[in-house]
């Protein structure tokens, strides 16, 4: 196992790449190249074909036509093994980690051991520490992956690629799940890697990150190449226009809040997390009608558990939750839904939709047992189809038909459908967890407008997000959570990025 002996790749070219899926032309003659020492950003709306292009580079799909050329040599990747062998590493949009294994085991997976058939996890751990040191990727090699925060999991992904001596690293939306601080740390790592002569491909929906990090940027739209540009010559507005094909407003017009009665009240809530320790500690918060309360925090500080308690998926160990004056501390999801709460889940593919159900069937997930969708348990498909068509039209969901399995839709469109489904129920309280994670700017903007519409209509919204920009753009008040505790609640108008950052790092609000 001599990974450093391999000569690092200098230049990779993808030429005239065409890739079809049933009913979709995902890549339509795309040309793309990346060089050692450069960060090349790849931009495009949801479903533009970015991941598909990269998956071909990593041997996961075979192009229908077109060529991959490394340092002048045409290469055919039959499988990721070939790509790894050629020095390509990839951090996937959805992490490729075996959650029941330790960090070291995940890294060692598939590699030969110095001890023959026996695992040499201690040596692997040692090398992991070495790499971690060099690139600032702090992680405990003996930790089991499911216990790690999202940010830590991502570091494991990067370590996996570095460990295999990758000289080209593809990062598919690496920051979608990171806090600004974590993203900053990642950028330090990535710059270090580029300086070391690595070639990096960086996919993100966050334009400021692209502007801050990349040397060149390539934009895709509907599977086609729009163009490749030196980043230095581009502005945020330019990029948005190239991606979406129209001007994108990046600010929201928000009249002052006129909070009404208390809709959601959380009192001294405690909950135990998956790791068996308290994840939410003595947490109290009130959300009133007609306001958006943002909950900011670094990922893994109890937001997920809090959202699970509020939606009835997790039993709190102490405390009380009141919804519209009713005690719902131990209520089931169904009871909360009946009481007027709706929720936008953090993990849309796992908890938001049933991917083998059609769009239509997903559209009635919470409401299927109510009129007019069913009557005495018999479903009324006429009504359901009409309703779904309305949602699709109102929320501009891009789908071939209402009968299409929802898994064939892009992430942004799935998110729009979830939003449409939840908001049309005219909720009195919305729990929105990471509502625009991984969603392109066009769709994000759209979703934000919809949430603000709800605010205007008098709904109480708890917005849980790790995207501080999003929090600041939408919230009236901002609460910060750290290690399961409330660090304070501040007025959004007066809060500064610095004061929020301090609270997110564990400093209690002083005022």
């Amino acid at each position, binding site marked *: 196992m001599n990974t450093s002996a391999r000569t690092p790749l200098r230049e990779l070219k993808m030429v005239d790449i065409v890739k*079809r899926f049933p009913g979709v032309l995902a890549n339509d003659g795309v040309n793309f190249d990346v060089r050692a020492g450069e960060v090349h950003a790849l931009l495009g709306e949801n479903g533009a074909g970015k991941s598909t292009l990269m998956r071909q580079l990593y041997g996961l799909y075979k192009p229908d036509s077109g060529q991959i050329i490394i340092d002048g040599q045409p290469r055919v990747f039959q499988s990721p093994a070939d790509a790894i062998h050629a020095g390509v590493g990839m951090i996937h949009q959805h992490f490729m980690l075996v959650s029941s294994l330790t960090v070291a085991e995940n890294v060692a997976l598939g590699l030969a051991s110095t001890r023959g058939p026996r695992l040499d996890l201690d040596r692997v751990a040692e090398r992991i520490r070495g790499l971690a040191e060099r690139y600032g990727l702090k992680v405990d090699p003996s930790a089991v992956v499911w216990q790690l925060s999202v940010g830590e999991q991502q570091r494991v992904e990067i370590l996996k690629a570095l460990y295999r001596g990758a000289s080209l690293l593809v990062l598919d939306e690496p920051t979608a799940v990171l806090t600004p601080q974590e993203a900053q740390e990642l950028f330090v790592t990535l710059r270090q890697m580029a300086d070391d002569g690595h070639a990096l491909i960086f996919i993100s929906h966050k334009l400021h990150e692209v502007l801050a990090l990349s040397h060149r940027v390539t934009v895709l739209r509907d599977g086609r190449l729009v163009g490749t540009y030196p980043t230095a010559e581009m502005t945020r507005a330019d990029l948005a226009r190239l991606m979406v094909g129209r001007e994108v407003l990046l600010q929201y017009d928000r009249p002052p809040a006129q909070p009404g009665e208390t809709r959601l009240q959380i009192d001294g809530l405690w909950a135990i997390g998956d790791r068996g320790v308290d994840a939410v500690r003595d947490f109290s918060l009130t959300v009133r009608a007609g306001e958006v309360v943002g909950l900011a925090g670094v990922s893994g500080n109890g937001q997920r558990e809090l959202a699970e308690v509020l939606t*009835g998926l997790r039993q709190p160990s102490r405390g009380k939750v009141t919804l519209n004056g009713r005690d719902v501390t131990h209520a089931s*999801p169904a009871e909360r839904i009946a009481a007027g709460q709706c929720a936008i889940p953090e993990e849309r593919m796992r908890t*938001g939709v049933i991917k083998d159900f059609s769009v239509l069937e997903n559209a009635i997930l919470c409401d299927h047992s109510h009129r007019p969708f069913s009557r005495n*348990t018999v479903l009324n498909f006429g009504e359901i189809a009409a309703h779904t068509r309305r949602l699709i039209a109102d929320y501009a969901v891009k789908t071939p038909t209402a009968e299409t399995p929802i898994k064939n839709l892009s992430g942004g469109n799935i998110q729009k459908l979830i939003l449409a489904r939840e908001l049309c129920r005219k909720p009195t309280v919305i729990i929105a967890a990471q509502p625009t994670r991984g969603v392109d700017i066009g769709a994000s903007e759209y979703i934000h407008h919809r949430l603000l519409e709800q605010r205007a209509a008098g709904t109480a919204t708890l917005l849980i997000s790790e995207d501080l920009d999003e929090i600041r753009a939408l919230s009236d008040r901002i609460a910060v959570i750290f290690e399961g505790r409330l660090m304070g609640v501040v007025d959004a108008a007066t809060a500064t990025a610095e004061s929020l950052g301090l609270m997110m790092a564990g400093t209690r609000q002083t005022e």
Partner: protein
Amino acid sequence: MSEATSVVTRAAARSAWARRLQGWQGALVPVAAVVVALMIGAVVLVGLGADPVKAYSSMLEGAFGSVSGFTQTLVTATPLLLVGLGVTIAFRGGVINIGGEGQLIVGALAASAAALYLPLPGVLLLLAALIAGVLGGALWGAVPGALKAQLGVNEILSTIMMNQIAIQLANYLLRGPMIDPKEVEAGTRIAQSALLPADSWLVRLVPRTLLHGGSILALVMAVAVFFLLWRTTVGYRIRAVGLNPDAARYAGIPVKRYQMLALILGGAFAGLAGAVEVLGVQHRMLEGLSGGYGFSGIVAALFGKLHPLGLIPASVLFGGLLVGGDKMQRSVQVPDALIVALLGLVVLFVVGSDYIMRKRAAKAQSHE
């Protein structure tokens, strides 16, 4: 807007078409797989000194080519269809029910007991016996269901165990409390119940055959299950729980309750199959009544792509294979074992061919 709508409708029409074509071809491939398996069987037949042409023509004739053969195929298909419906519901609910055999036996026991011991007149007795069968099977499905929901006991394990328990329970009841008093009197002690009162029998549909009203009941049930799964909120919930329990829970569906319901309904249909065998065919409970339908029903269900309506032709096809196989054994006098081995090959080839089919359909779709 109008352009968008027309694109949508055109795409819809196209995908519906593709789906129909796929379904049509999908029916041909299993047939081809059966043919390949039978060709291998032909080689073995020659090796055993039997005439393969005679063997297969008698098989075909025995299963589909004569009134007596075809009615027998339908008689066999009936419990397969019913058990298969139960398997289908359970599977759709994300639980694997291997317990059809035990549920069928318990259903048959319960139906016999009701017919023997309930003092009901006329058709009421038949009705009561059918309901008892359903309840018996449901009970046998509820045990693994409750164990899974309450204690997380894997249902594959518990249903396999419950099968053995049911067999021993039947042994016990049929040689003890439920034994035909005449057998005790005569000293022969055959392990069977007394003959059920004629009021409880299902009507025979064709004279001089065993075809009985249970077959019609099974067909009605297939349509009913289709309706249940795709036209009611209960079926919607069962399917949601089966496909994504996390999302179902998030949407307010009590997941465990529906997993349990899926197992109970699975048991209920197997129990109904047992009742129908007793009331339609044997007219008494006896050892060996199940005929292995509890397992064959799983195969039939998967042949039918776990779809209640697909299950109708699938159970007739599989029933025909069983009946035709036996006929072939009789006509060319090869060991029964050959038929069993052939059946195994057919099953392997048919499931194997499914993938080839799906692959081709996907390719066709992406290149249209």
